[in-house]
């Protein structure tokens, strides 16, 4: 870690390992679970993992662009949650279930 700023208490690698672990947990949840809500939660987990990376590198490179970008990721996450939940509501109203593998009407 030759390039780490002397005043940075936590090595930047640690952020990357944490972020990778959280991202993989989210990806695994998305692939394994059938419940649409859990799939949306996994998506939020993955977005948070990306945010940790951005903040860690923002501190490491002493540059605020990374922190600014986290705000945009949060805005997109909010938009995605709103639209995703609206779709979930509409789907539940029509099909009375939230298990994603039952939504296969468009399969040819």
């Amino acid at each position: 870690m030759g390039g780490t700023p002397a005043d940075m208490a936590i090595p930047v690698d640690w952020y990357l390992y944490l972020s990778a672990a959280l991202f993989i947990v989210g990806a695994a949840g998305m692939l394994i679970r059938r419940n649409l809500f859990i799939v949306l939660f996994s998506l939020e987990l993955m977005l948070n993992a990306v945010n940790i990376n951005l903040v860690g590198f923002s501190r490491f490179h002493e540059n605020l662009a990374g922190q600014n970008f986290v705000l945009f990721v949060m805005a997109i996450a909010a938009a995605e949650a709103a639209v995703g939940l609206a779709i979930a509501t509409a789907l539940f109203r029509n099909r009375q279930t939230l298990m994603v593998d039952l939504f296969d009407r468009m399969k040819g």
Partner: protein
Amino acid sequence: MTEKILFIVFAALAVAGGIGTITRKNVVHALLVLVFVFLNVAAIFFLTQAYFLAVVQILVYAGAIMVLFVFVIMLLNLRTFEQEEQTHRRQRWIALALSILVLAEFVIVLAGITFTSARGGFTPEVISAAGGGTKVFGDALFNNMLLPFEVASVVLLVAMVGAIILVKREKTAGATTRVWEPGERPTPEALEEEV
């Protein structure tokens, strides 16, 4: 040294909470564990001296987005799906193995990399001399990132309109929807009749 210990603690709690989120059967339990994960991530932002983002993380994520989820879960009057199978039967083990494989790849790649700081100049001393993290953050946001900021507001507007249109109940005359009992799996024939 204290920061390193705190980082390890919060990181371990965050990952444990993440695993808890994707293994809970009850959706509300999973949601509460997810809020716990977000609080831990906010603590890690605090440790990184991104104070404004830590507060935004708590307010927007743990506050607003999760409350939105809670509202929808309550509004939908979900029967518990706990009796149903929670995982995809065909792909769960493949997915788990692939996830562990990708994690191993990440670790192997990261172990072989040394990063060099770009020294952008915004050290904690510079930031506190310039009036604090939030002021510097706002300066950077409204000068360098003004256009993306405005685009983000348009995206939020589009999402709001889209959500309203998607949820708006259309007037259907005499359409009856079948209700499945908890634990009963809708048969393909029943789903076909529904149209």
